[in-house]
């Protein structure tokens, strides 16, 4: 039943798809096609059919070099009525048997019998001739296309018509060089594609994939995103090489956008008046990148050069008009920025504090003025508790002024520069570097990739900002539910956790939340914020922070879940601030020989204690040395005493790995103890003392990680994870 392989080519021709939706859309299309072929048995686990995907802003393309032309035939046993009702007493077929035979297009004599757990049934072997692939594709292609999930789709032929990310205007569907006749709305599949809007022909015949790619190339469409990317980068090199010492300020996100904004991308370099370089680099780069999608260029020392690179969707700038146009637009943009930069300077940040009364933070949590006041108190408290008294005044000033840039024209125009602008203005006003940097950094980190604040003062202001938001929102009942998180509280907490890892304060999460609640209490007494039940915040916010912590350690940092659980369980009650270093240590110690057997032993101890407690055989008491038996028990006790001291010293100096190493070195003694000593002896005093020894051991050595959470390799002891 060999069937010939033929190539399959699909091109969805559309109006311009937003650049950031192209790759996810393409991945969905690939998945939908491959799953569809699997369902149709045209692709199997042994011989999976895989698609090559390509895209430009105006087309999504799927290509498969070899697809069989017909489904394999299938044979299945179709079950009919029970045998006992299928034949009468004379063994003649009843209407039930006759009807089933007719349905199977055969005669009752040819039916078979199968035995099932429910008894004997009539059955018939049904052979289905595989359908031609062409037919299957006819159904699959429109289904797959319209099945792509987009965050916001549209309709264009009226409500009864198809929905897609942008209008579909052409459809190329070829299987073995023949058109697969299908349609999306008014668009009928054909053997035609189209070239670049300005440089190519609008209607081009396609026979196969190789020809398709070549035809597109001749018509100024580079189908391969990698090729477009390489072209942009290489040609930028060429443009900058003509002048010495210039270098592209790389920006992967922008590059990716540009790759999907043009079918034939060509960079063009432009200049701007060096006098604009007196504006802060952050502002210039934001205007160029964010608003104009231009790359910026730096000089040898890293300073911004009065140059930019735009990427056109054309093969060249024939008359120089394009460069001229881009320069003209940029000049207007820079003029605006300069105007804002200068007029904003007429008011100091301190003067702007009053204006924050007009800017709502959250309707029930007051204005940004009130938030700034709370941040000032809170950041001060955090600094005090951290023993950063020399920083205190500057931290408070930075926290008070951090939000003032929300009233500036520059931030109103370029919202992504909030914080940065405040920092720049603080510096211009002559505030200390400490204050300016803290304001500048206080929104950091804004994403997983973003850095944390550069200074402790910045970290404290950022923490105060985040805690104020989290505690306030949880207090007035705005905690995220399900997928709804309108105040981005998850991201807020995530950033707080990132900061806590780089700036380990001697505090627990409980402490900082309580401190924040105290600050809110003052505001509540002054009537700025409605009162809420203080007791409800921690029970909700504690697990929320824990969850974010777990997510960060496991999904972002990639630590195994059992190690994360072990460390978080040990941090448990106190919700210690920064178990991150402990996690690193657990991760390292885990590879060593003693560790997993010790984890097994700890688990055993935990079980023994639990069982004894349940049976009422154990109540915690003080360990009595006189009751210890000489031999393994006394040896374990002495070793424990010595080790506990070493562990405490290592922990004190923050060397968690050495602490864990010391704990792991107990392993032979613990094993020996269990080999030689019976714990549950009849003598109550002896037994309780023995259990106490084990309990002490367990609690003393579970402060870094709860080893019973570690999933060990021995299957019978691995528990039911």
């Amino acid at each position, binding site marked *: 039943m060999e069937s010939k392989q033929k190539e399959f080519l699909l091109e969805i021709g559309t109006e311009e798809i937003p650049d950031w939706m192209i790759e996810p859309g393409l991945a969905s299309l690939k998945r939908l096609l491959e799953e569809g072929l699997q369902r149709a048995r045209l692709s199997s686990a042994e011989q999976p059919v895989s698609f090559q995907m390509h895209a430009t802003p105006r087309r999504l393309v799927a290509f498969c070099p070899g697809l069989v032309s017909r489904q394999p035939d299938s044979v299945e046993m179709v079950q009919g009525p029970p045998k006992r009702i299928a034949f009468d007493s004379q063994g003649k077929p009843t209407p039930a048997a006759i009807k089933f035979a007719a349905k199977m297009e055969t005669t009752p004599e040819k039916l078979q019998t199968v035995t099932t757990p429910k008894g004997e049934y009539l059955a018939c072997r049904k052979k289905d001739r595989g359908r031609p692939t062409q037919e299957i594709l006819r159904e699959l292609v429109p289904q797959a296309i319209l099945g792509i999930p987009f965050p916001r789709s549209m309709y264009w032929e009226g409500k009864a018509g198809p929905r897609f990310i942008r209008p579909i205007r052409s459809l190329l569907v070829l299987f073995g060089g023949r058109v697969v006749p299908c349609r999306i709305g008014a668009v009928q599949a054909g053997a035609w594609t189209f070239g670049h809007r300005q440089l190519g022909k609008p209607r081009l015949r396609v026979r196969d994939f190789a020809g398709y790619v070549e035809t597109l190339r001749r018509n100024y469409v580079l189908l391969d995103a990698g090729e477009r990317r390489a072209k942009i980068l290489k040609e930028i090199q060429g443009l900058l090489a003509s002048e010495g010492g210039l270098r592209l300020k790389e920006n992967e996100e922008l590059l990716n956008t540009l790759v999907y904004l043009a079918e034939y991308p060509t960079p063009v370099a432009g200049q701007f008046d060096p006098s604009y370089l007196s504006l802060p680099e952050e502002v210039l780069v934001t205007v160029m990148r964010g608003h104009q999608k231009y790359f910026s260029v730096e000089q040898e020392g890293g300073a911004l050069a009065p140059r930019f690179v735009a990427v056109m969707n054309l093969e060249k700038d024939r008359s120089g008009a394009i460069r001229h146009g881009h320069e003209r637009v940029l000049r207007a943009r820079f003029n605006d920025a300069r105007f804002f930069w200068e007029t904003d300077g007429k008011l100091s940040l301190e003067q702007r504090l009053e204006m924050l009364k*007009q800017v709502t933070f959250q309707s029930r949590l007051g204005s940004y003025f009130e938030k700034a006041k709370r941040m000032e108190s809170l950041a001060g408290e955090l600094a005090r508790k951290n023993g950063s008294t020399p920083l205190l005044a500057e931290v408070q000033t930075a926290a008070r002024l951090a939000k003032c840039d929300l009233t500036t024209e520059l931030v109103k125009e370029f919202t992504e520069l909030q914080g940065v602008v405040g920092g720049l203005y603080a510096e211009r006003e002559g505030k200390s570097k400490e204050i300016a940097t803290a304001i500048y950094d206080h929104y950091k980190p804004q994403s997983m990739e973003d850095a944390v604040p550069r200074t402790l003062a910045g970290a404290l202001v950022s923490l105060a900002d985040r805690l104020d938001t989290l505690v306030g929102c949880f207090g007035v009942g705005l905690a995220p539910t399900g997928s709804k998180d309108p105040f981005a509280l998850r991201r807020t907490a995530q950033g707080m956790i990132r900061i806590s890892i780089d700036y380990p304060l001697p505090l627990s999460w409980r402490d900082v939340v309580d401190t924040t609640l105290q600050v809110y209490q003052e505001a509540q007494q002054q009537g700025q914020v409605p009162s809420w039940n203080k007791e409800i915040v921690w029970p909700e916010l504690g697990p929320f922070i824990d969850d974010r912590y777990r997510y960060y350690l496991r999904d972002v940092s990639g630590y195994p879940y059992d190690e994360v659980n072990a460390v978080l369980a040990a941090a448990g009650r106190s919700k210690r601030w920064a178990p991150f270093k402990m996690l690193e240590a657990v991760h390292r110690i885990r590879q060593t020989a003693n560790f997993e057997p010790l984890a097994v032993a700890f688990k055993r101890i935990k079980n023994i204690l639990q069982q004894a407690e349940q049976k009422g055989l154990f109540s915690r008491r003080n360990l009595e040395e006189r009751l210890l038996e000489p031999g393994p028990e006394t040896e374990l006790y002495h070793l424990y005493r010595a080790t506990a001291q070493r562990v405490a010293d290592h922990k004190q100096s923050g060397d968690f790995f050495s602490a864990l190493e010391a704990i792991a070195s107990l392993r032979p003694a613990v094993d020996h103890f269990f080999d030689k000593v019976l714990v549950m002896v009849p003598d109550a005093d002896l037994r309780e003392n023995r259990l106490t020894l084990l309990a002490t051991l367990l609690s003393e050595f579970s402060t870094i990680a709860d080893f019973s959470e570690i999933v060990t390799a021995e299957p019978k002891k691995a528990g039911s994870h």
Partner: protein
Amino acid sequence: MKPAKTLQELIFRLTDFWAGRGCLIQQPYDAEVGAGTMCPETFLRVLGPKPYKVAYVQPSRRPADGRYGENPNRLYKHLQLQVILKPAPADIQDVYLASLEKIGIDLRNHDLKFEEDNWESPTLGAWGIGWQVMLDGLEITQFTYFQQCGGVELDPVSVELTLGLERISSFLQDTESVYQMRWNEEMTYGEVRQAEEQQFSTYNFEMADVATLWKLFELNEQECRRLLEHYRQLKAPGEKARFPVLAAYDLVLKCSHLFNMLDARGAISVTERVAVIGRVRSLACGVAAAYLDQTDASPGSSSGSSDASQPGEKKSEVVAS
């Protein structure tokens, strides 16, 4: 085609082009609007099943954008060329590009991109999917497939093209400031309009009386509500047909403009903002529902088609919730 040398020549060429494509050439609407979209020729015509093609220049006022005539690129009042094609033709992008060729933009010499920009007007309960069209880095057009208007899902879909005429003209004439460009052979844009920009900026930012603006807003809102209430009581088709739904819409436009004025005066806090926008939206949606109900009830209308056949009242409730 050589570039249009003056602003008015640009307007002539564009209106000529769209007239050639079967568009009715309307004149600007005689009320203050923030955008051409707000004119009845767009807001109301895109509702319901009846095909329509129209193009017009609409002076659009945005009090907060005024810069006393001092900023070379920002204006309190600017001109938009508004084109509505209902239903949206399949080759609309090509037709649009042809209109650019007609005003003298040789697309082989310029970098043109369609960059995602989904338009939304919370005050009108309207949104659409589309792009900003970038020409050598300059945004020259907002290109939108309307999906919803006045809270009503549209069927058929209209396409809206909004061209910023000052920008385009300034680009074609290659002037650094909008005020330097030629309106006609004799006069510059600055000679015609600079004083107006200055005076209205002064009024909008400094002198407009906030209490009066609020009072006017409330009066217009009340009057509009009264009309909509009245319409809802009507039963007889004849009474409905002569009812001034269009006048009610004028009152929505007045409210919208007064809101913009209050905003420019800094009289609306962030929290209030959402609420006031909601008030205008509920009027706009009420008018849209009444308009559909009225056209549906009028003789000769193609009744029975999806949207139009639903009672107006129900729709405004849906929107208000």
